[in-house]
């Protein structure tokens, strides 16, 4: 098979564009770099240039109780959201892929709506619902909010995975005597493994960072973003830089894993296509 070899177009010099692209890159990274730099700055945030390296802010962070409580809350909510959103999202994806029912178009749009709507609208709607139903603002409510909003992420990712699935595999399974239930567990689900992991990672990260919906549903216990937010209202301290740097580091690791999972999936599929050709 002839490779898609790099044509002259893709490697021709384009100096202006390269400079511009580099500047955009710098723009995207400047705040992150500044954040990390100043988390080690003894004289706090602001001023230039940063002198006097110190780990004090990190030390302060580690002794800061409320932050760790908030982190724990966030982790609980995020994990719960992953489980619930994946289950409902999987069912929704299957429904969209395989079933027809009245109102399907409306359903599809509704499921995807929280993705595109500003968080404030979804958050307020859920708040009004909660009040009417007699629920208090609390962490549990936040969990419901996250899970509901993030079903859309799960649905999108899993639907794409289902589309890539070779229908004849399921047909072969049924042909060989397996029931639909068995086929689901032995064929469908394993094929969706990569989509599930990718979706799960994405939902986890989004839930950990979620602030808009959380803002309106939170009770007395804080999630991590909420905690950072209330600190910010009181003023700037480099401790926040320290937290942020750590969050950034973890996010980077997660996203690299997510990306590897996704592209390895693509690599395996491409290999299959080649083998079949």
């Amino acid at each position, binding site marked *: *098979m*002839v490779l898609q*070899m790099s*044509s*002259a*177009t893709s490697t021709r010099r384009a100096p202006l564009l390269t400079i511009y692209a580099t500047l955009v890159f710098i723009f995207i990274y400047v705040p992150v770099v500044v954040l990390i730099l100043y988390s080690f700055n003894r004289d706090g945030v602001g001023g230039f240039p940063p002198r006097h390296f110190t780990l004090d802010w990190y030390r302060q962070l580690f002794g800061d109780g409320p932050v760790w409580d908030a982190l724990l809350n966030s982790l609980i909510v995020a994990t719960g959201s992953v489980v619930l959103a994946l289950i409902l999202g999987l069912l929704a994806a299957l429904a969209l892929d395989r079933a027809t029912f009245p109102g399907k178009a409306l359903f599809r749009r509704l499921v995807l709506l929280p993705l595109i709507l500003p968080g404030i609208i979804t958050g307020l709607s859920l708040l009004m619902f909660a009040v009417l139903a007699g629920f208090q603002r609390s962490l549990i409510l936040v969990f419901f909010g996250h899970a509901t909003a993030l079903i859309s992420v799960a649905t999108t990712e899993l639907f794409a995975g289902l589309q890539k699935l070779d229908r004849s595999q399921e047909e072969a399974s049924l042909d060989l005597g397996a029931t639909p239930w068995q086929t689901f567990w032995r064929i469908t689900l394993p094929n969706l493994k990569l989509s599930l992991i990718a979706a799960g990672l994405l939902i986890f990260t989004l839930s950990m960072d979620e602030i808009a919906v959380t803002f309106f549903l939170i009770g007395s216990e804080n999630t991590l973003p909420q905690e950072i937010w209330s600190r910010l209202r009181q003023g700037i301290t480099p401790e926040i830089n320290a937290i942020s740097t750590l969050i950034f580091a973890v996010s980077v690791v997660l996203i690299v894993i997510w990306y590897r999972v996704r592209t390895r999936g693509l690599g395996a599929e491409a290999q299959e296509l080649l083998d079949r050709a």
Partner: protein
Amino acid sequence: MNSSVASLAQAAAPADGLLLEVRGVAKRFGVRDVLRDISLNIASGEFITLLGESGSGKTTLLRLVAGFEQPTAGEIWMGGERLDTLPPYKRRVNTVFQHYALFPHLSVRDNVAYGLRVKKTATSEIGSRVEEALRMVKMQEFAESRPSKLSGGQQQRVALARALVNRPLLLLLDEPLSALDANLRKQMQSELKALQRELGITFLFVTHDQEEAMALSDRIALLRNGALEQIASPREIYAHPATAYTAQFIGQTNLLRGEIRGGIANCGVLRWPLDVPDSLAIFSLRPEAIRLCDGGVRQNDEAKFRASIRQQLYGGASELLEVDCGAGQLLRVRISAREPLSGEHEFVFSIADAIRVQE
């Protein structure tokens, strides 16, 4: 020759002679040498085919002429001027792509007009030239359609019109018929040949199908592993292959390996007089050169042998026999169709038909 075709042929090459010179061109991708020291000349008005397997370098050579790659070494000249230093959009060369590469967001008419619009041709002129190009490929009634609504054969014609409307000095065709089914292919082959004859534009055609190459070309350039194996007219290359590879790639053949000793060529069971110095030798003997001659007399310039028929493949107009000469030597013989045969028979061939080839 009708007027539409005449005006397209107008802008053809400098009067008779050399159009394209490839001088010592080589191309390397990473550590792979895809093309090694290729030199060939293309005369204006000829239909020349680059033939070879995948990986032979034929498509790369085409892309070098089109301008999508740069040679690692060597030069390409066209019409007396340096070509390889020019970007694609400055070359008077146009390409018909393997999967047509029609612009999906433009109608057929706009696709064909693209090259003219981009060079700021006068609007009045564009209209008439597009019309005549569409007429030439018989796609006038589809002028307003989108490419996605057309069949493969129709898309191919549009791609052809889009390239030719620009009156290029050289038209490159990158396996344009490979995506079509067998019958459509044959039809398009004959249309392409007729078109090239009428227009007189030089065609550089790439294919892996040797039958196609033989049917269409004035000359065939056979490429193997990035080097030119042989370059000759179809008749010449069929009748006088230079190497064993060529003999086997083009048409079918029997490769007879043996030696020449004391004026006799010995290849397994077969032997015939050959007045050349002693050496090892390989001969190519085409299946159709061998005839049945049970009970016939052998002439002086012929060689005879006995063999038993192992297989008989009926092919409508002819039969292909697989015969065993003994000691495991198998040969293929092509004869005109007749009733099924079996057992041992006598065969004969002219000595002159056993062509000596290089390894």
